């Protein structure tokens, strides 16, 4: 700009600072101010002059006005505002969490009750099944025993020639008692015939015990009950050089030595 000096002296800059220019004129001047640092400097000088003038004319407003005005402004003070925002957000969050938790709790209680009912039903079923299994198991054991006894009987009949049959007669205590014992000296096998077994009933605490008399001494051959489902032959312990067989009533499981007072049956070979 050739006439920069005259532009500066035209009073436009003063008008600009005083806010007395149209927006078009303002825009033009701001454009020039960017191009010519002299204009910028001059504007600053005018501003400073008017600032000085304003300061010279300063009047302190009444004290009470300070608080009134400051309290009328809206602040976005971090501490207060953000805490508030956060707390209200958290409050919202907690509200929904609480509601969700209660719903979950309610549902949980219902499912726990249901599950508990199902669990109890299951326990009952299991108990029933266990009873059934026990029954079957007992039956299987019983059949197994019966099968074994039957096999023994079959074995006995197939090898009858090898067996000596000894009939034990009841003693004074049990005159009606009788028991057939089959003895195979070659194989040292002893079996009792369950189908012809006749002995007084024994209670649960007691069992009959079969003894072999070997050279005058009793040898344990095992225990048996008077009442059995099986009709086969029960295999007893093996023994050799037997002279006689005897049966005593002993405590269940048998004893090491025979109780002679309870001698029930006896028979010599």
């Amino acid at each position, binding site marked *: 700009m050739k006439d920069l000096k005259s532009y500066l*002296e*035209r*009073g436009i800059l*003063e*008008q600009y*600072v*005083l*806010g*007395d220019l149209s927006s078009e004129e303002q825009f033009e001047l*701001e454009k020039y101010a960017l191009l010519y640092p002299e204009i910028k400097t001059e*504007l*600053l*000088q*005018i*501003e*400073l*002059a*008017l*600032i*000085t*003038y*304003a*300061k*010279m*004319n*300063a*009047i*302190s*407003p*009444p004290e009470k*006005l*300070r608080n*009134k*005005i*400051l309290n*009328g*402004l*809206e*602040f*976005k*003070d*971090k501490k207060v505002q953000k805490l508030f925002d956060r707390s209200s957000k958290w409050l919202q969050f907690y509200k929904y969490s609480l509601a969700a938790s209660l719903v979950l709790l309610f549902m949980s209680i219902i499912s726990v009750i249901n599950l508990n009912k199902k669990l109890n039903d299951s326990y009952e079923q299991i108990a029933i099944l266990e009873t059934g299994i026990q029954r079957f198991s007992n039956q299987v054991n019983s059949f197994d025993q019966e099968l074994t006894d039957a096999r023994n009987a079959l074995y006995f009949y197939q090898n009858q020639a090898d067996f000596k049959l000894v009939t034990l007669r009841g003693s004074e205590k049990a005159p009606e008692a009788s028991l057939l014992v089959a003895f195979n000296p070659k194989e040292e096998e002893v079996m009792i015939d369950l189908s012809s077994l006749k002995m007084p009933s024994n209670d649960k605490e007691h069992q009959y015990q079969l003894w072999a008399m070997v050279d005058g001494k009793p040898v344990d051959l095992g225990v048996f009950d008077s009442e059995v489902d099986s009709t086969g032959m029960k295999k007893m312990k093996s023994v050799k050089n037997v002279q006689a067989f005897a049966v005593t009533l002993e405590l269940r499981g048998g004893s090491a030595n025979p109780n002679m007072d309870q001698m029930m049956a006896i028979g010599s070979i």
Partner: protein
Amino acid sequence: MAIRNKEKAGAEALYDMYSSSLYGIIFRVVQHEEMAEDLLQDTFLRIWNSFESYDSSKGRLFTWMVNIARNIAIDKTRSKDFRNSAKTEDIENNALTLNKQSDNSLNPEAIGLRELVAKLKPEQKMILDMVYFRGFTHAEVSEELDIPLGTVKTRLRKAIISLRKVFN
């Protein structure tokens, strides 16, 4: 930053630094204490709420605020209720109060400067005050005082140059 973030500390600093200058300007424009107080509040409200629009590349914060205060005050003088109340007020009387208050001003900078203001030629000071404090446009001053527009501009410029000498 405290002002841009709208923190209370920013507003307090702003008020403490500029309230007396702005109040001085507003008072001189409206010549009425109560009204000036209300307008000072309006001024701070507008400064505070439109602070985002202040562009530091276009001028000083002080100038921006002064122009807000002047515009608010001058708008008031042009409003209907102001003209009504002005009839009952003795402006000369107010001017006296004003000078008295100015004397009692707590602003220490103002004290040494007053003598220098006195050095302003009366015709320069009058035009400056008309424009600065009463919101006259250059054209209105020219009309009011019945002097050419060019003269108004020259005198105003000279007044400002005199002021510049004060702080240079």
